[in-house]
């Protein structure tokens, strides 16, 4: 197995090729560097101003992890946005994460909601998607099958809540390694949004029953609300990202790092199991692409990236979740 001399991607990932120079195909075409500190985000400010009379200008997908906690603080304090923080509780948020959600939203004076689907229903769905066959290969290169489903459910829930509550902007706590874009704001049309969820929605409903339909956006509902499609805001296109500084800043407002999650999640106990299953099945770390993107763009050193790639699971949470999946 060969590893890229710059970003750590290895050629056991299907789309990765390492050339004789030692660089992978992703590094060969990328010259991007992170943005400078404190760039002005005029487009976002102007959009907030346009919707200043709304009850909420932004709906934030708030997991209680470090990145969404920092993002929430950033858009509240830097942009003075009126925000509704919505947490998708997948049933596996650590106790400390639930505390972090309360502490951070209380400190920032942000209204907060939690959406939770029955754990057993989610477990069945996570188990069904476990082998990854319903996902495109490109999706599995960026996240485990369990994470892919969880993220998809969050996106469906957030779009729905934004539309019915008339909130014009959606924000996620994506790191710069998770989304490759130079556009801080993007507004997709209703058909495109429906389309990207369609295959997974249909597979799950066919296999597990019509009771799962309500967890996905209905194309008819989307068409009826075509004019209400919200913008997606990516804060780290124009704002600096530094993991250590982020953690330091949110610690100052009472956020605490859970000890029972794995090294690549600061809120979810399921992640350990999801990571290990992905590695057992596909042979590479599901965070490899995110980490390599961060290294390539200079957000993380190669050594820091290598250290993260060694962190797969927290043994105790892995074992607990494994037993739960066995019972399904």
């Amino acid at each position, binding site marked *: 197995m060969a590893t890229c001399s710059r970003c750590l991607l290895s050629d056991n990932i299907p789309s990765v*090729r390492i050339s004789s120079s030692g660089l992978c195909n992703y590094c060969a075409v990328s010259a991007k560097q992170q943005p400078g500190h404190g760039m002005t985000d005029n487009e976002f400010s102007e959009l907030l101003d346009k919707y200043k009379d709304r009850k909420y200008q932004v709906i934030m997908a708030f997991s209680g992890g470090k990145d969404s906690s920092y993002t929430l603080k950033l858009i509240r304090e830097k942009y003075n946005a009126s925000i509704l923080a919505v947490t998708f509780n997948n049933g596996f948020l650590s106790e400390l994460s639930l505390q972090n959600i309360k502490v951070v939203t209380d400190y920032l004076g942000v209204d907060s909601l939690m959406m939770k689907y029955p754990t057993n229903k989610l477990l069945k769905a996570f188990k069904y998607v476990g082998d990854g066959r319903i996902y495109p290969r490109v999706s599995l290169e960026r996240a485990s099958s369990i994470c892919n489903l969880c993220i998809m459910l969050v996106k469906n829930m957030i779009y729905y809540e934004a539309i019915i509550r008339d909130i014009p902007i959606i924000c996620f706590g994506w790191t710069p390694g998770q989304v490759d874009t130079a556009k801080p704001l993007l507004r997709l*049309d209703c058909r495109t949004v429906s*389309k*990207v969820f369609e*295959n997974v929605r249909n597979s799950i409903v066919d296999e597990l029953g019509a009771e799962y339909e309500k967890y996905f956006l209905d194309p008819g509902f989307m068409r009826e609300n075509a004019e209400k499609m919200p913008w997606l805001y990516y804060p780290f296109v124009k704002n600096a990202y530094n993991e250590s500084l982020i953690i330091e800043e949110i610690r100052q407002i009472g956020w605490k790092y859970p000890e029972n999650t794995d090294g690549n999640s600061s809120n979810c106990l399921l992640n350990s199991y999801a990571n290990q299953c992905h590695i057992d099945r596909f042979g590479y770390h599901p965070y490899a692409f995110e980490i390599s993107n961060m290294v390539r763009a200079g957000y993380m050193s190669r050594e820091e990236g290598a250290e993260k790639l060694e962190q797969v699971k927290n043994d105790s949470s892995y074992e607990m979740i494994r037993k739960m999946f066995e019972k399904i």
Partner: protein
Amino acid sequence: MDSKDVKDKLLSFFQNFMPYNESINEIDGDESLIDNGYIDSTGLISLIAFIEENFKFEVFDREIIPENFESINKIHMYINSRVLSMR
């Protein structure tokens, strides 16, 4: 930049994400990229970034619709039309 240059550059985006043992030439230019799993929502956002960086124009939100982004041939036609309008 002529239509062939546009196509070559566009295909290079997809080729970069193809498994080592597959070629972009195996994809039918008219087949749906999302339906057939060649691209997902994150990939679509990367594709837009790639187009803006490589073809030097802004992709407007109103243009991110299936009529322009459903298949390789549709994306090719969309980029061609934008490149032509810049001349």
